[in-house]
């Protein structure tokens, strides 16, 4: 009946083992949540800075600091998840989750650098 191999007898105890190995789904969104936070922070800082007449240097360094903080956060997440998922991983699902989480972290890091970095060299409030 099973999709390919012979049926496995499922019991309530084996279910608990599977559940214990499972990862949290929300981790898949962590990397790009940091990117979204970085974008929001940069946009807000820029709006506030321009409205209240911050000097160009102050505004530029504030933006740079905000971006660096978010990049550092991605780095910290990388370290955390690298430790969280042992090698070799516990299960095929864990391996999959690790791959996708790490993939999103790398992609989010690149996205922060690409979308927010070059803008720092432009004129600030014109």
């Amino acid at each position: 009946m099973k999709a390919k191999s012979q049926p496995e007898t499922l019991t309530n105890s084996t279910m608990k083992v599977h559940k214990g190995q499972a990862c949290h789904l929300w981790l898949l969104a962590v990397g790009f949540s940091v990117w979204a936070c970085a974008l929001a922070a940069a946009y807000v800082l820029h709006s506030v800075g321009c409205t209240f007449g911050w000097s160009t240097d102050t505004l530029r360094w504030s933006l740079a600091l905000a971006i660096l903080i978010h990049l550092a956060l991605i780095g910290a997440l990388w370290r955390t998840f690298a430790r969280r998922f042992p090698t070799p991983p516990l299960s095929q699902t864990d391996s999959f989750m690790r791959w996708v989480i790490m993939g999103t972290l790398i992609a989010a890091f690149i996205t922060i650098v690409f979308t927010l970095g070059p803008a720092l060299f432009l004129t600030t409030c014109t």
Partner: protein
Amino acid sequence: MNTTIDDGTHGGSALKLHRQLAEIWATGPGLQRLAAINHSVIGVRFMVTAFVFFAIGGVLGMLTRVQLATPNATFMDAETYNQVFTMHGSIMLFLFAIPMLEGIAVYLTPKMLGTRDFAFPRLTAYGYWCYLFGGTILTTALVAGVAPDSGWFMYTPLSSNVYTPGINADVWLLGVTFVEISALTLAVEIIVSILTMRAPGMSLDRMPIFGWYMLVTALMMVVAFPPLILGSILLETERAFGLPFFDPSRGGDPLLWQHLFWLFGHPDVYIIFLPMAGLLSTMIPVFAGTPLIGYRAIIVAIIGLAFISFGIWVHHMFTVGIPHLALAFFSAGSAIVAVPTSVQLFAWLATLAHGRPIWNVPMLYIFGFFSTFAIGGLTGVMLAMVPFDWQAHDTYFVVAHFHYVIGGSVAFPILAALYYWLPLLTGRTAVYRLAIPAFWLIFVGFNMTFFLMHLAGLLGMPRRIYTYPAVENWTWLNLLSSLGGFIMTIGFALVVIDLIAQVRYGRRVRRDPWKAATLEWAMPIPPSPYAFASLPHIEVRADRIAVGDLAPSLARGEGYLGFVRNGWQETLGVHMTSGMPEQLIVLPRSTYLPLWTALATATAVLCMLFKLYLLSLGMVLVTAALFVLAGQSAGQTRDYGLLPVGRGLSLPPHTETTNPPAWWALAFTLVADGTLFTSLIFGLLYLWISAPNWPPVGRPDTSLAIALASVVVLVVAAISARGALRAVVGSRAPGAWIALSAAALVAAIAGLVVLIGNVIPRPTEHALGATAAAVLGFVVLHAAIGLLFLLSNILRLTFGLVSARRHIDFRLTRLWSDYTAITGALAIGLVLALPALVDLLGMRS
């Protein structure tokens, strides 16, 4: 409900099992069809209705092309033309594209995931009726000559009372919001069903790629629609009651509408594209004869795409005067969004290159998609560049671009999918005599119509003009464009004839005509209302399944739940990540309740449209009462403990678990609600920092005592809700806690109403007062809904639907009360901070 327990050991032949299940799951004949809640029935209704609206929108599009075929045309006057092009865009986006993807999701997702239905079939039906009634309101307005006429994105001040004094804009604001309620309900339903109702063993890494696409899409919908719903509510209250959210002379800002609209509008493009990409990712491996390449990379790409699509809403606003530096954020984001899109395109091309592609009609449309979407994507990157956008903004170049993106990403994949899944829908194979010429007519007509618009735009032709002078080069481009439109229409007409012919004369097939490897083919076709006679256990990725071996076994009842029990509509709930079975889910039977509830909602909308506000409020209360009533017909009147579900496994019914689908549904509903709340806060702060005529003449002033008291009673209500839950779990009477919680909520409402009544400046005088009143009104509304939760608790206690093990209702109330207390404290805190914020404005440079 029948309370005897069948041990579920009844076996028998596949035919006997089919008859038993069909008796339980089937929709009745005649008028009983109006009570249908089955996903196959509702899914088909969604798709057929969406096609009807597509035809209406298409005719409107053709009318615009007739008008623009020649210069100085008098076929339509400006007034009529404005209504026609506005309704063309609104219908294609809100009544065709989004509902079509919902219909496809409703019909296909449960089948692909190996379950028998969605988690909340009554909500699916309610969503459909809301869509149908909302769409009917919009199209009836067109016939009556009072259709919306301010363009499909309803920019203020054009759509404000001053420039659109009739009900045209109200029709759009109320009708579209009504349809979006449908979209939101379905989004929540799709998320919860995908996460908790897959076939046992289908861990996330085994989920078919279409499931991933729909999961990400539905999550995007939950976050994307609330800003537009909020914007529509604010604009409608401005038009109806004079609250100046978008009126710059009273501290409002028309750009706030643009922000709220595009916070929805840009992700919406990807909300439409991703399900289509999911269909392509399912079909291409079948025709290539090899599994999809880059499964994991595609998942990373669509997660990234979902997020980035939200972060680039400002690229629709490059010309409104935003400083260069901020423009650069959004310009770079708009460029980089092409990367995750390209990952998918290259994965499809690699799959085709790796396999031995079979040329068939769906593949024709897939290649039609590749070419048109590539052009639309490239012009998208061009428009992402600020200097180019400044030149091309509001010209026909933009019209060409988004028709390539939307047309390419929707029309061609849908037609490919239609031909691919037609055997599943009808049980008949395709006859391709008309399909191939139809494709070429559509493909040639599409490119002729829209490619030339690029050139017209580059030659300076602005969009949304009802006629134009005989400018050299505009004339022949427009004439050919209109000619192309007619060729495309003939192609679509041929498709319709072809489909009718196939449904009538197509050769009958048994199952899996394409030799596909996904679960929707592991059932008799057309599908039975219960989808699977028994549920499979999945041990490989669910797009690599040996359908031919699996299907007969499932039909014989050799999987989970291969029997009937108590006349229940049963399916299984699983762990979100591992896919291990956790609960037995008993679904509701057919009922007219969704129809009545949608009718009540439609009446409320219509009353509001005709400014019968008290009657509208009454119908809102009727709608709420029907929702509470629906809650009383769900659940069990006794504890069952573990029940056998087949294959040696026993599970508790969902009513006796801690996190049944209803809990997750409320959690995701609160995500949507939280997005709306955040958008409201954003609106207030945006006006504070950007709008003209700030600060207001009168300094804001709020009673600190009443404000703090309101926060305290909201917290008391939340604590009481927790007390009620603890009492139920401890088998004690929760009545006193419920009474305390209700009293606290009533006190909070009273306090907040006093605060709203004393807002300074007055809500009609300045946007600060209006937004403060809106923020406080948000809390009042949630406290009132909290009272409905408590009412439902009392009713369910009375009907015996609650016990120490069956306490989900009280957990839902606790979750809602906690959320209300948190958002209430934030909202009231912000209102208290308004004087300080206004003082800060004095420090502006």
